[in-house]
């Protein structure tokens, strides 16, 4: 057997109240694509951080290419031995150029004292070429798109002669096309002997790319598997210890006589969206899908008053309204769950409980003007239970939660408002499959209480699972509507999304 590139033995790591890693071992062979899966808070990010030296394990052993580093390794050691980590926030420098972002780490690692601009550009260009990408390397990074930044981060890892590239949810913020491109690059790297360890909650990606899979549950290892011996259901079961069943949501507003809550008429804004006619009835879940950049977020933002449209009408309960700011939207019963939850929706320094009740604190005021503490505690406790937020206490700070659990806090916070129209942009980004299903249930439950919901998602599967009706947006226009999701194939919708069917007409 070839010597393992990375071997992790019996790692333990405890945070107060949580055993984040409990006797976890892992082996990555050269050139393999190894996938780490598990529910939110199962310890994936923590394991990665231990290997990268960002977090010190309590006990265990880390061995790279036969060299043992004991239970903890420093960042520099880890890099020197060919381990490259790309964190969820990418750790890039918005104020530096693309070239610098790609090349600097290598210069540091080589102990360079002076900057050689020519080399910086060369290294960057070569590295981009390695994965067949073209970005203007003199551009400041803050002028690059999210997907470009992802590419920059990967290129950076490549510059350092990485033998193992570790990525924490690399695909949660980029388009399907970029994912494909990324995977192509990954395969090319594998051929060169570079191994990959990555975390993803999108199981189809796991099967597409992974050679082997390690499953974590509650900080313990469930087992190592060859990807070929698994399928989606089996993997879900290994992760969660339960099987999932999907309950498609059927709802016909006309049959039910459901009132029209929100309607837009020829809503438009230059360069963003055009002639949008949209209807949301009480009790239905409308899906809105499309490629990244197709204008969905901009549309949602304008319904929430954060991006005033330039023309067209918004009609709520039959009367024309103008929504000039979030407070207007709130007054009309519209809530919006933002897509980019990285810090935006959360008050990081406050407790989980405070965050959950932040939006409803007003309504908790009794006749005395004092806040009804008991009701408040009940509300956040209820939401922590409902969404299974993994924490020892609601009094902990939000920043102590794992990525997926932070997402749930945001969701809880907005759901607690109990709006009439709820716009959810990317409800399950970074959420594990099981919780995803759970969140879908919650959304459908809410719809049954008469709420009108608009779900924005890249994932057609998700749209099919949670919605009763779906719209597809392309280049700022609604190009298709699917009223009966039971009778269409996923691939049909995907083709419209990608524009492959050539149709510009409403189906």
């Amino acid at each position, binding site marked *: 057997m070839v010597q393992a590139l990375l071997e992790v033995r019996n790692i333990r790591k405890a945070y107060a109240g949580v055993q984040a890693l409990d006797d976890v071992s892992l082996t990555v062979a050269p050139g393999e694509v190894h996938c780490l899966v598990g529910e939110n808070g199962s310890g994936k990010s923590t394991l990665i951080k231990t290997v990268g030296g960002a977090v010190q394990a309590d006990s265990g052993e880390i061995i790279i290419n036969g060299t043992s580093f004991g239970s903890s390794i420093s960042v520099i050691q880890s890099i020197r031995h060919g381990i490259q980590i790309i964190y969820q926030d990418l750790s890039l420098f918005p104020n530096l150029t693309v070239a610098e972002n790609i090349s600097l780490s290598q210069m540091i690692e080589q102990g360079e004292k002076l900057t050689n601009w020519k080399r910086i550009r060369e290294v960057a260009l070569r590295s981009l070429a390695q994965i067949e990408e073209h970005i203007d390397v003199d551009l400041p990074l803050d002028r690059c798109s999210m997907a470009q930044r992802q590419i920059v981060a990967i290129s950076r890892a490549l510059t350092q002669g990485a033998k193992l590239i570790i990525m924490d949810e690399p695909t949660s913020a980029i388009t399907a096309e970029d994912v494909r491109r990324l995977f192509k690059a990954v395969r090319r790297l594998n051929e060169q002997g570079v191994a990959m360890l990555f975390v993803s909650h999108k199981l189809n990606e796991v099967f597409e790319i992974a050679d082997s899979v390690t499953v974590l549950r509650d900080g313990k290892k469930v087992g190592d598997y060859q990807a070929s011996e698994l399928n989606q259901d089996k993997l879900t079961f290994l992760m969660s210890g339960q099987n999932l069943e999907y309950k498609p949501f059927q709802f016909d507003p006309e049959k039910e006589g459901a009132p029209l809550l929100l309607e837009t008429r020829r809503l438009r804004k230059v360069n963003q969206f055009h002639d949008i006619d949209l209807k949301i009835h009480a009790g239905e879940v409308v899906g809105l899908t499309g490629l990244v950049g197709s204008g969905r977020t901009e549309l949602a933002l304008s319904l929430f008053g954060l991006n005033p449209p330039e023309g067209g009408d918004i009609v709520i309960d039959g009367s024309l309204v103008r929504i000039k700011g979030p*407070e207007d939207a709130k007054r009309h019963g519209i809530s919006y769950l933002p897509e980019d939850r990285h810090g935006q929706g959360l008050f990081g320094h406050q407790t989980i409980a405070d965050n959950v009740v932040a939006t409803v604190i007003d309504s908790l005021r009794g006749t005395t003007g004092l806040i009804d503490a008991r009701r408040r505690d009940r509300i956040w406790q209820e939401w922590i239970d409902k969404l299974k937020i993994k924490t020892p206490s609601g009094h902990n700070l939000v920043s102590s939660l794992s990525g997926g659990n932070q997402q749930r806090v945001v969701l809880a916070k907005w759901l607690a408002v109990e709006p009439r129209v709820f716009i959810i942009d990317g409800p399950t980004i970074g959420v594990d499959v099981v919780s995803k299903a759970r969140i879908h249930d919650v959304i459908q439950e809410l719809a049954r209480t008469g709420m009108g919901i608009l779900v924005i998602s890249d994932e057609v599967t998700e749209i099919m699972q949670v919605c009763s009706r779906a719209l597809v947006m392309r280049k700022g226009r609604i190009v298709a509507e699917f009223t009966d999701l039971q009778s269409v194939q996923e691939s049909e919708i995907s083709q419209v999304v990608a524009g492959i069917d050539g149709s510009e007409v409403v189906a």
Partner: protein
Amino acid sequence: MKTSFPKALLARHETYLALIIILFSIVLANATTGFLTAGNLLSVMRGGAGLGILSLAFFVALVSGGIDISFPAIAISGQYIAIRAMLAFGINSIWAAFGISIAIGIAYGLFNAFLITKFKIPSMIATLATFNLYHGALLEFVGTEAVNVGRIPTSITEFGRMAIFRFETEQGPLGLSIFVVVWGAAIAATWFIMRRTMLGRGIYAIGGDAEGAKRAGFRVTRIRYFVYGYVGFLSGIMGIIHVSLIRFAQPNNIVDTALLRVIAAVILGGTAITGGRGTITGTTLGVIIIILLDRHLIMLGIPSAWTEFFIGIVIVVGVIATHLRMKISRVRRGELVVDRAH
């Protein structure tokens, strides 16, 4: 996860401040004769009221995630313009004094807010600039002439002598100065706003995360206007308190001494410079510590030239202590593992 009563108390920054005050008072009471007299304590509080009011203003701005260092210029502008206007028009009413000073304070505060919200200038830069703008304008357009006690309107000097709960002692009549009453009212108002209104929650929210607060439906711009307007309002009040205390108006007063003390008091009081955290109790205890130090170093035989040096040390030690205490409690809660650099 309820913590038991004494433990919860121990975890609070305010407890430590109170302990420092008690300890320092014991030292003072033993080392000097003049400290523990009703007369001294009442006079110390009277003298500290201005600082206390400005500290509340600074506290509110910090909690909102901003900073306002123009307040000394606002206070002196309110004061000096009010006095000069009263003299010019022959008005002699304490209400007019407060009215003019507060109006100017609010106007200047709103102008700060305008710069900060409209042009998104970082508040420190904006208020540093307006500090010079307001003070420069005062010197240039209003004048530099000092107004002495003889010319200060009598309503103002009388206001300075007003007291409630008067009682007679061997050293003469004592009472709780009206200044302390105004300070108390400012504390109560600020407490009510910060703890009991949505506006106050909004101030904390925008200090924690402005973008999130906006999405949560808080009217961020409006809240900022309130914050800086309120700083101006309190500064205007302090301007009149100050002139009725020293019975002399000169356009360089306040500007020269207030800034450092106020910052020291508020930081010591545990308000986070990064916004979103801080309590009124902490701020007020911080003010008391600074006043005690400032007024009694001499009693302890420490020359007054040391004050500047000493306040510097107090800020450094105070901030370090706050940092260490927070770190310990964060480690306890299991939050702090990856040490983030600032």
